[in-house]
C-alpha cells in the first residue's frame, strides 16, 4: 500500500496525468485482496439535494463509477441506485444500521431541511411513520463511523439555503453533534469524493481545515493556482466574461474560494470555468451562493466601521484560515455569516437581520483585522526570502509548463 505521503502527492497531482480514481483503484483492489482493508458499508442519504453530486460521482473516470461501487465501497442504500424499492429498500437501510453499527459510513447529499421540524423533506416510510431527513440523520449519525457531507448543500446549506431559505436548509454539521467531513463543491468533483473516501479507508481522517475540508483538495485558493494568475499580476483584466485576461473584474471569486479546480479541471480534465472564460462563482466556498452573488460583479470593498476591507485582505485571511486550521472560528463567523450575508452586495435587504450585537461584531472585526495584519506582515517577510529561492529562469519555465495542461490533456 502507498505511504500516506505518496498518497497525498498522488491526490494533489493526479490531474496532471490521468484520473485520480483510475490511479487509486488498483491500489485499493490490491489492499482488499491482501485483506489489509475491508470495504465499508455505506448509506447514502439524499436530503434537500438536486442529485448533482451523485451525478458528478457517476462521472468518475476510467474506471467508472461501477468500479468504484465494486472495488471501493459497499453501497447498501442509495435510492438512485437501489434495485429494491419501498419497504424492501428501507429494510436494507435499517439492517445496515443495526448490523453494522459503529462501522458504516453515512454520506449525505443535499442540505438538511429543518423548517417545520423537517417536514419539508420526508425521505422514507418505516412501518406507518413518515421519516424526515432531519430525523433520519439524527438517528443514524451517532451510530456511524464517519459522517461525510458531499457537496456544498450538505456541507454548508448551499443553494438550498439561499436567502430567504423557506425550507430552513442547513449544513449537516449544524444539526448533528458528530464530527463531519465536508467535501464541498456544487457539485463536488468526483476526485475529491473518491480521494477522501480512499484516505479514510487507508489512513483514517485526512488533515482538514477549519471548515473540515480535506486540505489535500481545498488547501489553496483558485486564485493561487489559476492559469490566468499572471494576467492578474500584470493588470490585464477581461471587461466581459469570455474575454482574454484575468476575470476578477467580471466577478471571479477565485481569490476567496479554496479548491484545486485550475489544476485538476473537470470531466476528465477537459475544462474548467475560468479556462472557458467564465468567472469562478465560488461554489465550493462556505458562503455560496449568497456571499458570492452577484456572480458577475467583482467582490466589492467591504465598508466597516473600522475601515475598508478589500478582497485581497479577505483572501489573505481565508488563506490564513486554511493554514491555521483551528482556533479561528471567530473569523469564520465574521466572514460567512456577517460579511457574507450583510455587507457583500447580496440579496438580503439591508434593513432586516442586522447583527444582533454591534459591540460583539466590532470586536470580531477588530480581531479579524489584527489577524490580517499579522498575516500580511508574515507574507511580507516570506516574500523577502522568496527572492533567494527563485529558480533559474529556464528551469522555472519547465516547471510552469509542466503544471500547465498541455495539448494531450486538452482533447
Amino acid at each position: 500500500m502507498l505511504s500516506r505521503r505518496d498518497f497525498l502527492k498522488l491526490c494533489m497531482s493526479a490531474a496532471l496525468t490521468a484520473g485520480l480514481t483510475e490511479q487509486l483503484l488498483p491500489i485499493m483492489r490490491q489492499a482488499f485482496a491482501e485483506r489489509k482493508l475491508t470495504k465499508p458499508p455505506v448509506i447514502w442519504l439524499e436530503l434537500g439535494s438536486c442529485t448533482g453530486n451523485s451525478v458528478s460521482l457517476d462521472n468518475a473516470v476510467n474506471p467508472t463509477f461501477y468500479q468504484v461501487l465494486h472495488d471501493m465501497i459497499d453501497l447498501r442504500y442509495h435510492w438512485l441506485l437501489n434495485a429494491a424499492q419501498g419497504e424492501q429498500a428501507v429494510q436494507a437501510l435499517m439492517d445496515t444500521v443495526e448490523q453494522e453499527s459503529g462501522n458504516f459510513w453515512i454520506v449525505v447529499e443535499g442540505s438538511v431541511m429543518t423548517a417545520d421540524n423537517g417536514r419539508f423533506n420526508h425521505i422514507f416510510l418505516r412501518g406507518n411513520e413518515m421519516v424526515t431527513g432531519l430525523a433520519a440523520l439524527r438517528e443514524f449519525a451517532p451510530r456511524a463511523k464517519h459522517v461525510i457531507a458531499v457537496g456544498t448543500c450538505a456541507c454548508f446549506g448551499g443553494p438550498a439555503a439561499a436567502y430567504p431559505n423557506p425550507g430552513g436548509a442547513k449544513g449537516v454539521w449544524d444539526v448533528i453533534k458528530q464530527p463531519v467531513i465536508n467535501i464541498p463543491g456544487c457539485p463536488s468533483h468526483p476526485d475529491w469524493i473518491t480521494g477522501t473516501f480512499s484516505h479514510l479507508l487507508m489512513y483514517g481522517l485526512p488533515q482538514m481545515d477549519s471548515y473540515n475540508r480535506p486540505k489535500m483538495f481545498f488547501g489553496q485558493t483558485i486564485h493561487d493556482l489559476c492559469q490566468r494568475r499572471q494576467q492578474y499580476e500584470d493588470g490585464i483584466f477581461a471587461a466581459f466574461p469570455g474575454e482574454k485576461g484575468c476575470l476578477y473584474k467580471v466577478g471571479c471569486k477565485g481569490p476567496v474560494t479554496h479548491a484545486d479546480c485550475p489544476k485538476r479541471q473537470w470531466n476528465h480534465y477537459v475544462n474548467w470555468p475560468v479556462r472557458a472564460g467564465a468567472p469562478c462563482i465560488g461554489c465550493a466556498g462556505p458562503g455560496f451562493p449568497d456571499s458570492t452573488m452577484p456572480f458577475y460583479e467583482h467582490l466589492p470593498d467591504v465598508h466597516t466601521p473600522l475601515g475598508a476591507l478589500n478582497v485581497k485582505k479577505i483572501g489573505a485571511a481565508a488563506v490564513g484560515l486554511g493554514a491555521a486550521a483551528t482556533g479561528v472560528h471567530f473569523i469564520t463567523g465574521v466572514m460567512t455569516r456577517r460579511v457574507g450575508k450583510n455587507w457583500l452586495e447580496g440579496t438580503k435587504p439591508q434593513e432586516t437581520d442586522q447583527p444582533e450585537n454591534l459591540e460583539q461584531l466590532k470586536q470580531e472585526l477588530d480581531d479579524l483585522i489584527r489577524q490580517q495584519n499579522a498575516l500580511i506582515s508574515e507574507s511580507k517577510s516570506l516574500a523577502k526570502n522568496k527572492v533567494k529561492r527563485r529558480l533559474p529562469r529556464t528551469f522555472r519555465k519547465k516547471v510552469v509548463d509542466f503544471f500547465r495542461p498541455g495539448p494531450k490533456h486538452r482533447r
Partner: protein
Amino acid sequence: MAVQTIFPVTRIHEPLRADIEVQAGKVTDAWLGAHLFRGMESMMLNRDPRDAALFTQRICGICSSAHSIAASMAQQQAFGVHPTPTGQHLTNLIYAADIIQNNLRHFYVLVLYDYVKGPDIPPYVPRAQTDYRLPPKVSEELLQHAKQAARKAVQAHEAMAVFGAKAPMQQTILPTGVTEQASGERIMAYSSILQEITEWVENVHISDVLTIAEYYQDYYSIGAGYGNFISVGMFPAPLTGDRSFPAGLVINQGQPETLDVNHFAEEIRYSWYNGDGAGHAPIQAGPGPNRDKPEAYSWIKAPRYKELPVECGPLARGFISGDYRRGVSVMDRLIARARETLKICKLAQGFVAAIVPDTPSFQRYTQPDSGAGVGLTDAMRGVLGHWLEYKHNKVTHYQIITPTTWNFSPRDNRGVRGPVEQALIGTPIAAEGELIEAGRVIRSFDPCFTCAVHLFKK
C-alpha cells in the same frame, strides 16, 4: 380494497411516495406525492437578473443545462439581446450532450434493473423476486452494455464540458451565447466524442431497448394514460429561432395543434400550498407553503393546459414531431426516448458542422434597468418554462414550471388525476408486496422531483 405505499420509489431523482390501490390484481387508483420542498423561486427575488441562469440550474443536477438555457432565454427576452449564431450552436451542443447523458443514464442506471437482475452485490440486492424474463445470456450481455453505457454517459458529460466548462452545472451559457471559444481544437474535441457516442447509440443502445421490449411485450399495453401530449420545442436555430423539435399539443393521440402558453395554469387544491382557488398563470404570484393542508398529498402543483392534464417528454415530442406514433405505453416511452437520443446525436452533428470556427460565441451587452421575459424549452423530460421580471436590476418575479410537475401532478381542482396517476390505472400487479410493475410505469416517465417542487411568494 388495499392501498399500498411505496416510499421511497427508488431509482428516480428524489423522494416520491406512491400510494397504489390494488383490486383483483390490478391498479385501480393511485396518488403520487413528492416530499421535498426547497422554494428556489423565492430565492431568486432581489437577486441580479444576470445570475438567474447560474443559480436556477442548481434546481437540478441531472438536467442542469435545461434550466440554464430556459433562464438565459428569459434573460435574452428581458434584456433585448440575441445569441450570436455560433453562440446558439454552442448552447445547443452543450444541451445535446446533456440530454444524451441523461437518456443513457436513465435507461442503463435507473430503468434496466426493473427488467434485468443486476450483480449480486448491494445496491443491486435486495431486489424484487419476480418477473425477470430475460435468458441469463441476454441478461449478462445487457449488464455488460450497462457498463459501457456508464462510460458513454461520462463521455457525454465530457463533451458538455468542452464548451460548458464543467458538468453537471455548466458555467458558460450567457444570454448572448457561450463564453468558451469555438476554436477548431474545441470543435474537434466535441465532435470526436459525439461520433463515438452516436455509433454506440445506433448500434447498441437502441437494440438493447428493443430487446427489453421483445421480452416484455405486455408493456406495450400497460401505462397508457390520457394520450394528451405537450411540447414547447427545443434547439432553436440561430437568427430564425425555428426549433428542431417543434412546439405543439396533441389531444387524445390526435393531430398536433398549435400551442398557446397563455393557457398554462397551476392548480393547488391537492398540493401543500395555501388556498384552493382557481389555477394561476405562471406570470402571476403564487401562494406560500402550508404543510398542514388537509386534502393535500404532494409538494407538486398541478399544471394544466386549458384544464387538461397533459404528458410531456420524448414520447410527447415523438407524437408532435411525427417521429414516433406507435402508441402510448411503458415500452413506447422507452423506445421513443432511445430513438430521440439518436436523433439528437445526429442533430448535434449538424450543429457542429454549421459552426464557423473562431467566430464570436457571444457578444457584450448591457442589460436595461428593468425588463421581463419568458424562456421556454423542452427539457429531457418535458416542458420547462422560466418567467422572469426585474426592476432596477433586482428580480421582482420568478416562476418556473418544470416537466415533472406536468407528468407527476397530483389531482387538479376538479379532482382529475395527473398523467402518471392515470397511467398507473389498470396496471396488472402479480406480487402485491413488490409492485414492480407500478415502478416500471413510474420510471418510464424519467421522473425528477428535484425540480418539480417550487413556489412563488411575494
